[in-house]
């Protein structure tokens, strides 16, 4: 029933409303994807926005310079993000958890520098403009589809043996290796899977905005937001990122209306609070308390 409502919403909703829902779908896709790598394997990815930006640029370049229609461009965005994940993940995931996190920290800055450097292709610091297209409604559906796909993917992973093995990496990587699990390969697969969603979402977002520049698609704020959403809702769960995305997006919009710029501070505080008080997030706590199945 909810699905039906969401499906027909664009017909009734205001322009602002549709945009907002579109954003929520985007965050669901982002937070859910972060959850796949960081929530399941415990390898915290602080640079995940890199995939969002890579997808955005790949899609935008294809649309603006090669005249591609936005649907295949979005798919290409996902592919580009996966390629980036492969390039980065292959060396970095061999590192143990903390070192991986450090490596991911630096990733943002590096990508921003690279984008500025390759000006001719990317429009450099002044950005890239896309031919105007009013396609908010179809993009709404596309983004909704991406969000659904990411959630479904999480569900499939968590209910599979592959997912169990990812979790063993989080629990005790040494023991997992001793049991014959090729942890490097598993981490890489999870990483690749976690990059596709942001890649596609990035391309869609670029198409929707009609213009991108390095600052807009590689901001640390995006990483922060997707992390806090997944953490709050419950990392390692299926619906946790969805819950986190909806609640925190609404909260962000409300707070932004009254006190601009405070919401980031709030997110930082929420991260601290969640880590100290409810490390498993809202759904995680419910899961524990009411012995809910893992597929929640």
């Amino acid at each position: 029933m909810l699905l039906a409502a969401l499906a027909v919403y664009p017909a009734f909703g205001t322009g602002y409303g549709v945009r907002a829902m579109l954003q929520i779908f985007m965050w669901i896709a982002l937070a859910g994807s972060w959850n796949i790598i960081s929530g399941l394997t415990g390898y915290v990815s602080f640079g995940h926005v890199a995939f969002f930006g890579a997808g955005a640029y790949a899609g935008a370049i294809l649309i603006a310079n090669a005249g591609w229609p936005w649907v295949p461009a979005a798919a290409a965005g996902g592919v580009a993000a996966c390629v980036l994940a492969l390039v980065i993940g292959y060396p970095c995931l061999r590192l143990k958890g903390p070192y991986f996190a450090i490596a991911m920290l630096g990733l943002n800055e590096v990508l921003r520098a690279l984008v500025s450097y390759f000006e001719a292709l990317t429009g450099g610091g002044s950005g890239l403009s896309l031919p105007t297209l009013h396609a908010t409604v179809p993009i709404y559906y596309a983004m909704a589809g991406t969000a659904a796909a990411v959630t479904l993917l999480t569900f499939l992973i968590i209910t599979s043996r592959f997912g169990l093995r990812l979790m063993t990496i989080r629990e005790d990587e040494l023991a997992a290796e001793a049991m014959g699990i090729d942890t490097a390969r598993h981490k890489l697969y999870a990483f690749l899977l976690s990059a596709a969603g942001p890649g596609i979402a990035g391309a869609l977002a670029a198409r929707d905005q009609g213009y991108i520049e390095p600052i807009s698609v590689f901001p640390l704020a995006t990483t922060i937001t997707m992390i806090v959403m997944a953490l709050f809702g419950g990392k390692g769960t299926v619906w946790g990122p969805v819950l986190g995305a909806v609640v925190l997006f609404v909260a962000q919009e409300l707070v932004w209306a009254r006190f601009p710029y405070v919401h980031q501070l709030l997110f930082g505080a929420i991260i601290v609070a969640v880590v100290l008080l409810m490390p498993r997030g809202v759904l995680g706590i419910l899961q524990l308390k009411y012995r809910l199945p893992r597929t929640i």
Partner: protein
Amino acid sequence: MPAPVLELRRLSKRFGGVAAVDGVSLALEPGRIYGLIGPNGSGKTTLFNCITGVERRDGGEVVFGGERIDGLKPWQIAQRGIGRTFQIIRVFPELTALENLLVVTRGGAEEARAHALELLRLVTLEGLQDEYAGNLSYGQQKLVEFARVLMRDPTLILLDEPAAGVNRTLLNDLLATVAGLRDAGKTVLLVEHDMKVVMGLCETVFVLDHGEKIAEGPPGAIQADERVIEAYFGR
């Protein structure tokens, strides 16, 4: 003389200036139970770690089934047929007992599940398969770890202090299972401090002291060996 399952040739491992394992050589024949004893800090767990690839050895060779395995990653070694338990239990606490076993195997889902349930029954844990491993008692977790090792049907099983913290009845069941494994042709090497276990179960015992192998032989001979007595009770 059948070909040895495992051979260590002058295996060495140093930590900084200290030789934790110092030129240890030994050979394990198939279908026997071996013990590895020695005072605390003599290098037993390090030896296990070198065999299983958790630590990189500094010198010497580890040969398993005729093939050199030193330098391989732990998961590769595990897949070749060496299983081990840990001194401090390392079950996956947020996975159920059944899932702890399921993550190990390679086969199809149905067959893996059946095999896992069978093993849980073997260690008398049936009924607890859907319990989170972290919620089980110490002894039960030990059994889960043990069953988990058997999932892959290893040729060589390394047990690190299987008797630690386990009550007598459980221990006897465990030891009976180990003897059963030996009868089925598997090779077992266990590190243990409980001398009764070692003397009662092991056919051959190796003694380590300060990283060196100082004695090797049947339990009776080891107990009487002067160097062993010195190592344990001081010079």
